[in-house]
């Protein structure tokens, strides 16, 4: 299901990633690779299923589209850009998907509208996602640090 979702994110015109994810590893001009996002999406789905979630493929896909539309709206000029972007960086996007996973643990899919998620994500201090700060966040531990930082800003508590 995960690969299909990531594929659909690149195919649907309502997706902020429309034609914007490198699915094959051969499109050097696309900075976001399927291999960065797919594992996080997989974890999000399996974690939600373990907690008794009953959402289907379409609901996960639409939630992710709403989520990333909300993210894009917080930095529209940076979205798709390789320089100066706040959120459009693989490590930040990976960390954000983990934050989304926590959001769906607290709120139902239906209630996570684009506007509501935008309000929640608007609490993120963009200064903590500067190029320099993100460069320092190397590897899985770095993504975990970014996640914990954003989680506390968005949800007001610390990671479990």
């Amino acid at each position, binding site marked *: 299901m995960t690969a299909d979702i990531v594929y659909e994110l690149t195919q649907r015109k*309502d997706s902020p990633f429309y034609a914007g994810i490198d699915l094959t590893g051969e499109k050097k001009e696309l900075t976001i690779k399927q291999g960065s996002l797919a594992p996080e999406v997989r974890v999000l789905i399996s974690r939600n299923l373990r907690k008794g979630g009953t959402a289907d493929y379409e609901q996960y896909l639409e939630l992710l589209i709403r989520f990333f539309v909300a993210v894009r*709206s917080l930095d*529209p*000029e940076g979205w798709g850009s390789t320089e100066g972007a706040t959120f459009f960086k693989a490590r930040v996007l990976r960390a954000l998907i983990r934050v989304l996973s926590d959001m769906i643990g607290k709120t139902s899919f239906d209630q996570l*509208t684009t*506007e509501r998620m935008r309000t929640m994500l608007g609490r993120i201090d963009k200064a903590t996602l500067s190029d320099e700060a993100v460069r320092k966040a190397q590897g899985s531990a770095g993504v975990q640090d970014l996640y914990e930082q954003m989680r506390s800003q968005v949800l007001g508590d610390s990671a479990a």
Partner: protein
Amino acid sequence: MRLLDLPQAQRFCQPASSIVSAVGMQPLRDFHEALPKNVMLLSEGTNHFNIHQVNILASVDQWLLFATAHYRRAIDMLVPASAPWTQVTLYYASFFAANAILGMFGGWVGQTRKRKQIIVDVEHGVPGTQQLRIYRKLPSPNGANGSHRVFWDFFYDAAASITAWAPTPLAGALTPVNSDFAWAITERNDVNYDMFSAWEAAKRFHGTFKPSKLASLRGPLQLQFEASERLIQLALHFATAVGLATNALAGCGHTGTAGQVRRKLAAQRPPQLVTQSAFGNF
């Protein structure tokens, strides 16, 4: 065709009162016809941008009124002989609602009086530096012909980018019936211009519609009814979400907010004047 996102549309739909009061109301088509051809961009803060913005927002409130009023009037026409025209009326209700949605998000698919195409979309959406781009010749995404087909082709293509801002139950309004962008105009033309189809629609209505149950509508009329209803609901939702507030509905005898005036005008009962007409001699 690119549109604003919702926060950007909120900015676009709430011009400062000083801008609104400084701009004279005029037909958008005349404004665009008079623009020098070398003007391709309308930039926030300029006179051209202000004129376009204030006038299209007025049009949005008027589209919302006529969409709502047509929907309301269609419900008064549910008899077999009027079934085809009910569908045409509902078609226009959806057409106006779709125009309103595009307008709120910075888009416009228009024509000059000389029937020359004008397309306006978003070049830059960030509040404070918003820019709209004018196209005077632009093929629609699927290369449609005919002004309404072209409109729907642009509309559904552009609407994809704002679908995520729609409430989930109404998001379907932004995709066409049968996944065919031209479905509504094709069906409208069938019942409007082809008497075989029109009579088939009247017979279907007679055979299936129960006057006590609106949901007993069947066929293209039912699909158009549902499509129009959802599109109007979505347009009204967006109007609230973007904080649309114009005085474009002044002059028809009602006061209040545009929403209040719209409801009063759309609900107004028509006078019963058939006995004063020639109908009895027909």
